């Protein structure tokens, strides 16, 4: 037998020393694997070197702390590391593309971005809006309900973590096709239908129980999501900026508040930074946390009172990495050290090893820094709400983290070391996909095609899901997710957060995973354009963006290559539109035995509506109004829902022409402000035919359109004009009498009057030859649209 790697310290509780000093590379990797800390050789060697200098071996608490802090999930190694790509070296994707865009745009209304748990922007008077979107893919793949619920709970705590009161949630989900063949399902992978039901129920349960309206979202279906479900949970909060506190100093007390700590959620972050395998369920079940929304509801009340009484000096949430991240990051942020006494942490049950207490990701916990003088009052506030709060340590002058357990020192680490992991250097490559544009004849019955498209999974009504989320609670939802008598799909939701102000916020999103199969750059560009135009359509402007990447394993060069390209597009189009990024998050290693998922970038847009009374919905309002198209349609059907329906992918991915697009957005905003716009709807999945159908059945009136009038380039087939998904296009309904004013305003833009709202409840579209190519009753259109997901599955 070889020398023992793990040495049991003679303590009354389990504590091990790990012999890294004399370990070989092979043994180092073995340690990393066996302890589940996910460090690669370069990293664990750095650890070895650190302890060699100190001439002692680390404890399990120390190694676990390092493992958590350096995990992809906590440290974002890929976004912060170096990447060799195309003969260049990119030093940090984040700095080179994402934060650089924000710096260059340099908006005065950004209060705090990329610094804390959530981005904060100025809103009205002394109020700010905080926003954050998280991913919770890995846990949701193992335990759909719990994973999605804790994803929602986690992002709500991110908002509390910047002293904001959560006022709305968003959620964007990606599933495999619900009719996926059970025979094809590899072992360990759950059926999309099961995942779908669990995730939807989990999100609804948490948001509804906490009384936070879920106002915006989207659901996409893609074959590649069978192995890796995509769960984006977002939350928006409101805070009086004067009450924002971020000034902890040595001597302040470390207060842990909320739920008790247990073994749930051990190694959630290292699990989230690995690929899913057949054994994930077995091995990683404990990595999924257990949700208790009512605990968080009480916690929220107490935190808001602590904020309003200005009693604490800092706050952060306990998410990935548990105490280890929260304590370490707070100490790092305020340039101090910390002493923690683990035996003071309230436990769900006895018997936890100190390292388990320190890295557990048990939910509904927050960490506050409280000056000694206010401690008593803070603890009383928590007690009043039936929430447990405990002083577990103190911030110190030296930059050292010391952890004690029952009198024994179990860890002593330098904070700077903890936050300077060796920079990863990775290689990225990009090869354009070798794709062809399909050749097929124009279908003879385009009405039938339209009805089929309306029923396709990505376009079909998500009403059966939306209604299981409370989107009305708090009574501030001005523009709801479903519009009109028949529940048309809204472009963006509007919330009116302040009682004494007409100012609102508009929340929208953009996501086009199917384009990513052709080109990640244009996929990202399209997502940005879509999120912005959705926001513009309801009257939003001064838009802030959030980026959320869900990608495959970044250690594989071609996956990293597409990530680099998508980041490049983020920079290019954020700067072109003047829309800064204020927050973001990445989830990598989304791979399963079925392969990587389609690279999926979610862009969330948060706009301001100066006066909600001028907000616009997407349903047509009255017969005889004119329908305009603003924007130009190109031969861009690659990745479209139409091609998908026909069984093709194609290559002509929609592009974004930022100069023209920005002008279109600005002019549409002007038209809305001038009161000329009665309805506005963006053209997205399924193109103009789908948008027209949605506007018509949501409003209960017919629409008559003429394809010959549609501004277009290189398009000579009815089906292409109907279903192309070119970016930056809107339908606008204008009162007959206001046409001249509208056209005057539109000067210099590509636009055209393309039809009318009709009393006859039919969608009637005349083709390029002047013949009728689509003619369907609203009830047939609506029935097709509602059929697919009507039963809630």
């Amino acid at each position, binding site marked *: 037998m070889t020398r023992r790697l793990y040495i049991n310290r003679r303590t009354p509780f389990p504590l091990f020393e790990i012999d890294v000093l004399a370990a070989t590379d092979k043994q180092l990797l073995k340690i990393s694997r066996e302890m589940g800390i996910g460090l690669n050789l370069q990293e664990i060697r750095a650890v070895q070197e650190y302890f060699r200098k100190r001439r002692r071996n680390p404890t399990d608490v120390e190694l676990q702390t390092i493992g958590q802090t350096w995990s992809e999930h906590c440290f974002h190694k890929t976004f912060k590391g170096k990447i060799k790509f195309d003969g260049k070296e990119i030093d940090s994707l984040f700095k080179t593309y994402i934060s650089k865009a924000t710096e260059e745009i340099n908006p005065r209304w950004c209060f705090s971005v990329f610094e804390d748990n959530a981005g904060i922007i100025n809103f009205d008077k002394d109020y700010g809006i905080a926003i954050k979107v998280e991913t919770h893919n890995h846990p949701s793949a193992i335990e759909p309900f719990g994973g999605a619920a804790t994803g929602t709970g986690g992002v709500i705590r991110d908002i509390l973590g910047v002293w904001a009161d959560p006022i709305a949630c968003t959620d964007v989900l990606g599933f495999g096709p619900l009719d996926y063949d059970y025979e094809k399902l590899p072992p360990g992978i759950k059926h999309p239908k099961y995942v779908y039901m669990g995730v939807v129920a989990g999100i609804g349960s948490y948001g509804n*129980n906490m009384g936070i309206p879920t106002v915006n979202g989207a659901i996409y279906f893609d074959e590649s999501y069978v192995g890796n479900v995509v769960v984006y949970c977002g939350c928006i909060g409101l805070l009086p900026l004067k009450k924002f506190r971020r000034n902890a100093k040595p001597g302040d007390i470390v207060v842990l508040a909320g739920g008790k700590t247990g073994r749930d959620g051990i190694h959630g972050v290292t699990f989230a930074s690995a690929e899913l395998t057949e054994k994930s369920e077995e091995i990683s079940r404990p990595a999924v946390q257990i949700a208790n929304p*009512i605990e968080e509801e009480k916690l929220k009340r107490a935190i808001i009172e602590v904020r309003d009484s200005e009693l604490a000096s800092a706050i952060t949430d306990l998410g990935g990495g548990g105490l280890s991240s929260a304590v370490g990051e707070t100490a790092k942020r305020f340039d101090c050290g910390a002493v923690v006494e683990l035996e003071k942490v309230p436990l769900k049950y006895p018997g936890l090893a100190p390292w388990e207490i320190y890295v557990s990701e048990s939910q509904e916990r927050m960490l506050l820094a409280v000056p000694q003088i206010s401690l008593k009052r803070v603890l009383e506030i928590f007690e*009043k709400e039936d929430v447990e709060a405990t002083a577990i340590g103190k911030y110190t002058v030296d930059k050292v983290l010391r952890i004690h357990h029952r009198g024994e020192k179990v860890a002593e680490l330098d904070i700077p070391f903890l936050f300077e992991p060796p920079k990863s250097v990775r290689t990225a490559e990009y090869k354009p996909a070798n794709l062809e544009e399909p050749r097929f004849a124009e279908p003879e019955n385009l009405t039938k095609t339209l009805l089929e498209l309306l029923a396709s999974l990505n376009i079909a009504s998500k009403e059966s899901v939306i209604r299981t989320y409370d989107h*009305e609670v708090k009574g501030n939802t001005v523009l709801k997710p479903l519009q009109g008598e028949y529940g048309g799909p809204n472009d963006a939701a509007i919330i*009116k957060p302040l009682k004494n102000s007409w100012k609102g916020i508009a929340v929208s999103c953009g996501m086009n995973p199917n384009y990513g199969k052709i080109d990640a750059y244009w996929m990202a560009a399209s997502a940005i354009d879509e999120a912005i135009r959705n926001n513009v359509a309801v009257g939003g402007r001064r838009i802030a963006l959030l980026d959320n990447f869900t990608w495959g394993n970044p250690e594989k060069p071609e996956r990293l290559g597409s990530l680099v390209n998508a980041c490049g597009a983020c920079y290019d189009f954020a700067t072109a539109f003047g829309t800064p990024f204020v927050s973001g998050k990445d989830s990598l290693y989304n791979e399963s035995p079925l392969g990587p998922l389609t690279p999926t970038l979610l862009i969330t847009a948060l706009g301001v509506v100066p006066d909600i009374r001028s907000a616009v919905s997407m349903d047509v309002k009255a017969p005889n109004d004119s329908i305009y198209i603003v924007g130009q349609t190109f031969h861009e059907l690659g990745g479209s829902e139409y091609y998908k329906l026909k069984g093709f992918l194609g290559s002509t991915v929609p592009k974004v022409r930022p100069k023209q697009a920005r002008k279109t957005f600005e002019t549409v905003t002007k038209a809305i402000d001038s009161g000329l716009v009665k309805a506005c709807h963006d053209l997205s999945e399924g193109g103009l035919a789908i948008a027209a159908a949605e506007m018509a059945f949501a409003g209960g009136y017919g629409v008559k359109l003429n394809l010959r009038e549609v501004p277009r380039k290189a398009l000579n087939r009815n089906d292409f004009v109907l279903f192309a998904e070119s970016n930056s296009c809107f339908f606008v309904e204008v009162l007959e009498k206001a046409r001249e004013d509208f056209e005057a305003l539109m000067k210099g833009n590509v636009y055209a009057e393309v039809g009318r709202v009709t009393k006859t409840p039919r969608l009637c579209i005349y083709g390029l030859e002047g013949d009728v190519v689509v003619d369907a009753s609203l009830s047939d259109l609506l029935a097709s649209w509602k059929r697919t997901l009507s039963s809630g599955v």
Partner: protein
Amino acid sequence: MEANLEQRGLAMKREEINVCVLRVGGTNCDAETKRAFDELGVQAEVVHVNEMVKRRSLLEYNALVFPGGFSYGDYVRAGAIWAKWILAKLGKELKAFVYENRPVLGICNGFQVLVEAGLLPGFEGISPYPEAALATNFPPGYNCRWVYIKHENDVKCVFTRKIPKGKVLRMPVAHSEGRLIFAKEKEKQYLKRLYENDQLVFRYCKKNGVYAEGRFPTNPNGSFHDIVGVCNREGTIFGLMPHPERAFYWWQQPDWTRRARMPQYGDGKLIFESLIEYLVKKF
């Protein structure tokens, strides 16, 4: 008793009225409920039940509201835990409150609490056991939507006195346990009593006032006889599933973008106004 007070002409000013919006862990509609009272110039205070037990008394208030939410997570049956808790810790005060005909309103989870506490329907005063239940919706599941409800009360309910009988109102519901049911063998008898005592307040209906007859989604939860809400025999305790506080302002309406002109307020305001008018006259 009420008539006597009115005759004595003891009028109370609006701003003297003090409404208690009670809350507990999991309550989440307290702020917007308070806002509705604020808007009408009436003082409303959100009070945690712990605070009520330790330092305050229900009898300091003229009216009591159990707002919506998921009290204690509703982990047993919706409203059951809070109902038992209230009876155990504040039962005496609550009974005194009710016997003095001080009004009690339960919205959504609050309605569930009042039913679980035996305060509603209250055919013969406070019942020692629940006489009805707010069962899981049929079709099952949480449902958030705007519904039409028709006012059925003649004169009894103090929360709807400003609403003409037969008027159709619109409000949103958002719940998964809102199906009012009675024990099967008592259904007919209880329904008869609801009518005889004038305790039926609202029924789900279509926009034109035609009753839902149990059909989804006009009746969003499968409630017996399309019942939306009921009051007690005295008309002073009232519970309903829809949220009047979410139908208070014009801009909360689902179709305001379709209309050139909106009335300044939504239908929910009538509930709060009726209550206030009753209080002004009563005291």
